[in-house]
């Protein structure tokens, strides 16, 4: 059998050429290829509190479909990844004004996109390790609480949240 295959692929069409063409076709079909083993990390949606009122704390839960922060990463099935956030304690506002922001122990959710994936609530203040088992695309949501002072200066307040994905 083996030798007959060699014969069939000899001559004008070499096995290497066949393999390369098959690889190209597989890639064109969108099938995974070792040549493009990759990791994608991106931020899909900023965490937004919109308008807040002086003296009134405002909480955006991580499962808020509109205002929670949303990240996404894609890696190979079986990969083990460590997720971590660099979180601010204060938001920077106009003329040096600041506003406290806090993140609770349940303010982050990781959600796989496989048919059997279940959401995992985790603490955004620590690092969490996940192994990709059934889904290679994971959505990560984050919420938080801002506490404007009664005499909070008006204006726009902001700060960055850094999401880090480490291949272990």
């Amino acid at each position, binding site marked *: 059998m083996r030798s007959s295959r060699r014969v069939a692929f000899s001559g004008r069409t070499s096995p290497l050429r066949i393999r390369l063409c098959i690889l190209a076709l597989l890639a064109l079909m969108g099938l995974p290829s070792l040549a493009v083993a*990759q*990791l994608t990390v991106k931020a899909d949606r900023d965490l937004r509190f919109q308008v807040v009122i002086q003296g009134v704390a405002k909480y955006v839960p991580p499962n808020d479909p509109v205002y929670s922060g949303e990240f996404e990463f894609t890696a190979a099935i079986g990969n083990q990844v460590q997720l971590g956030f660099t979180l601010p304690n204060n938001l920077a506002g106009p003329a040096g004004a600041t506003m406290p922001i806090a993140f609770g122990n349940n303010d982050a959710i990781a959600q796989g996109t496989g048919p059997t994936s279940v959401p995992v609530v985790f603490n955004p203040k620590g690092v969490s390790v996940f192994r990709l088992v059934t889904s290679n695309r994971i959505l990560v949501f984050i919420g938080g609480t801002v506490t404007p002072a009664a005499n909070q200066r008006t204006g726009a307040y902001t700060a960055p949240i*850094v999401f880090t994905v480490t291949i272990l």
Partner: protein
Amino acid sequence: MTAPGLRLSILLVSASLVWTLRSAPAYAQGVMVAPHVVYMDHRTRSGSLTLYNPGNDPVEVSIETFFGYPVTDSTGGFELRTVEHPDSTMPSAAGWVQAYPRRMTVAPQQRQTVRLLGRPPANLADGEYWARLIVTAKGGQVPVTGLADSTGITVGLTLEVRTILPVLYRKGPVTTGVTVSGLRASVQGDSLVVRARMVRTGSAAFVGTVHGALVDVSGNVVARFSLPQAVYFDMEPRFTTSVAGLPRGQYRLRFEATSERQDLPSEVILPMAPVRDSIQVALP
């Protein structure tokens, strides 16, 4: 293969790669990084990384290096141990692997190749040296939006992303292996929790796969796991597999570490004889 045939095939592969990347849906800020593990060789002292911006806005990207490797904690969970100032006993390449460019702006739906260049000390001994690359991607400043009202206070937090991936630099002949000891298993809920101490041998990290199989008295495999695993020094990882619905009784757990990896090209895999161990397991 003839040269024109080879060129045609390479062209097809390249075109398919571009097509695959371009066919990705439009995203917000972030980058796609390939490969997810970078191997460098002392003969060329170079490597490369491809970044792709799948979004509709430019992304500012910066690249830094540091030294770190995965370890396990007392529960078998994984974490990255970072060493800010590795001493001479640590196989760190963080100080002499450099990325070019280190800062760049990747236009929407465009690719950027980053060259990695090794500038090791002249007396570098044969072996494998490690570093970690931090790829930080930041979009343009997102305006804080909100409805205007009497308070006039609006709040929004911008998001940045970082990708940390390993770089392995090899000089001369390198070997790897792993020893397995202290294999044990316990039932927790509907899962079998497996722990084993794994110690790397040879001069390079063990990058392979761990297989576990639970076998009943008739020789049937009733549960299994197969997971990529890297051991840089030593660790005692925790593996789990579901045993829900399995009848009580005696089983045998077969544990095997092999050098195969589905997510890495075969030319970077260091061959190694499989390492096996097994124990009896009683399911209550």
